[in-house]
């Protein structure tokens, strides 16, 4: 187990190094170049100035050398300066990370609560009308374009009924918790509905398998109440596989939800990565992407380990 974990960690580190190089090289292939951008915005800058600046920032060096320079600094903890936000990378990253957690965590918890309820109810009576309705909800949820759902929610609840704000994170000038909560309702609802649909399918399948096992029949035969059978006996074994999905979804907490954030004008990690990539902000884009990739892969590893820990029949050599 320890050996397995160690090998996986080395693998993750290797993938991160490879990924950082690939992303570094790819960003160089994006339209525009920082110095050319400066030049186009300042007509007095001459070609000689541009060349001097390129030499100053090392942009005239070959790709590998530039990458090595970046990597050396990054390993020393210096991720550089964000051109887009004019602050050190960490200063741009941390507030967005907080915003993303505030958006993703409630959606995550609500979606799981909804999925556990619906999935369990559907699994108890396969083929019933309730089961069919839950199935319909699942199919609808996984087939819905997220931004379209967001659009409909905005149309109905913000533009139509005027109950909730359509975008942003807080009303300008107002700084209280209630206002921030009101801004969270629609994006959280969007994310919850979309992810609850796929979680429900997993819970339903896991519960059906759990309820079909022999020890459930034994529990029933011994006269355990239905609530005890479902909640104590079946849910416990059904939760093992569900935990895996939970851990796998964890990466989303850090990589954010780009489409939902864009729709609701919410400043989270997804939008940050998008803006950094589009705005040629090397340092910020690299740091954010690598952070997202590292957390996602760590979550994958945690999922595999949790699976072996919860189910003693599973072992990794």
């Amino acid at each position: 187990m320890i050996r397995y974990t160690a090998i996986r960690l080395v693998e993750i580190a290797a993938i991160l190094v490879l990924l950082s190089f690939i992303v570094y090289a790819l960003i160089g292939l994006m339209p525009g170049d920082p110095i050319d951008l400066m030049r186009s915005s300042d007509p007095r800058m001459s070609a000689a100035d541009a060349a001097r600046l390129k030499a100053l920032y090392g942009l005239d060096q070959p790709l590998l050398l530039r990458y090595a320079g970046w990597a050396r600094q990054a390993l020393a903890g210096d991720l550089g300066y964000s051109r887009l936000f004019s602050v050190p990378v960490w200063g741009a990253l941390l507030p967005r990370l907080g915003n993303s957690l505030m958006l993703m965590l409630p959606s995550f918890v609500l979606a799981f609560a909804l999925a556990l309820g619906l999935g369990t109810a559907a699994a108890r009576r396969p083929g019933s009308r309730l089961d069919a309705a839950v199935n319909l909800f699942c199919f609808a949820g996984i087939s819905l374009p997220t931004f379209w759902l967001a659009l409909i929610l905005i149309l109905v609840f913000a533009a139509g009924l005027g109950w909730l704000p359509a975008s942003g994170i807080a009303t300008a000038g107002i700084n209280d918790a209630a206002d921030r909560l009101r801004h969270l309702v629609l994006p959280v609802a969007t994310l919850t509905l979309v992810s609850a649909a796929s979680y429900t399918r997993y819970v339903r399948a896991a519960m059906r398998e759990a309820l079909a096992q022999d020890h459930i029949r034994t529990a029933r035969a011994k006269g355990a109440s239905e609530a005890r059978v479902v909640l104590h006996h079946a849910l416990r074994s059904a939760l093992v596989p569900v935990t895996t999905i939970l851990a796998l979804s964890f990466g989303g907490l850090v990589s954010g939800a780009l489409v939902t954030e864009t729709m609701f004008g919410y400043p989270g990690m997804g939008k940050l990565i998008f803006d950094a990539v589009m705005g040629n902000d090397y340092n910020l884009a690299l740091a954010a992407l690598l952070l997202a990739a590292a957390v996602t892969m760590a979550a994958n590893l945690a999922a595999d380990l949790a699976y072996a820990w919860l189910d003693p029949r599973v072992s990794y050599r």
Partner: protein
Amino acid sequence: MKAPLFLLLAIAAASFAAPLVGAVAGIDPNMVDLLDRLSGPSLMHPLGTDELGRDVLVRLLGGGRVSLVIGVAAALAAAALGTLVGLAAGYLGGWTDRVLMRGTDAIIALPLLPLLIVLAALDLHKLGLPERVIQSDEISVIRIVALAVLVGWTTAARLVRGATLVTRNRDFVRAARSLGAGVPHILWLHILPNVLGPLIVATTLSVGDVILFESVLSFLGLGVQPPLSSWGSMLSNAQELIATAPMLAVYPGLLIFLTVVACNLLGDRLQQRVDPAAASRRWSTKKNRRAERGGERAPGPF
């Protein structure tokens, strides 16, 4: 089985017949009529006109053609690439297998949407592609298909590898080998037919995924570019007019939704026919260990 298949065929038929119908009725999807902007439904324009006075219905159907072509082309190409990788990994085994499967693992483990954005925004000039290709109308479509294939091949690769591992030592394959059959012959005639069922199911399901993916990229402005339009790009255009003409956004979204639901339902029903046990396994996580995850990704919040 019947209903989703019928729905899909109806949408496809309508989309591909659209230019024909438009020509007969004398409607050009790109014809601008600034005097007749954002009009409501009428006999001439059953779903009204958009912000440039173009007929919404004809444009919707034309956009459907682009969306469907992207979905089907990418799903087929991804299945083909995945099959090649899966066959190589499963049949050759050893180092080939290890390297290829680590590759698929890595792709499955990464947060893909941000990485795809980087790829979607690349400057094709800097990649050194010929100018003729970059300037062509279809370049945005080709780019989306390429991206979808890049992330989509892993499912097929895992499926085919698994089936190949099971089949390669079955008696009929060994018999064929002992009779002197070559590797391509064995793979094509003896092994591939055994995965065809699950492969078709996975491909059907991925058509829906690709259409959703295309709509997300188009929504971000990285998808289909004018003069072509798809449901996704129509939807992202309509966003700016959401207050004045909400229906412009509702229609393309509804069509995406119906098409993807139909693909998912069809895939599910097909799976129940092809392999009833696998149908329940697809969503089951009982055997959800890394090696058996079958390429299923955690539901990624967009």
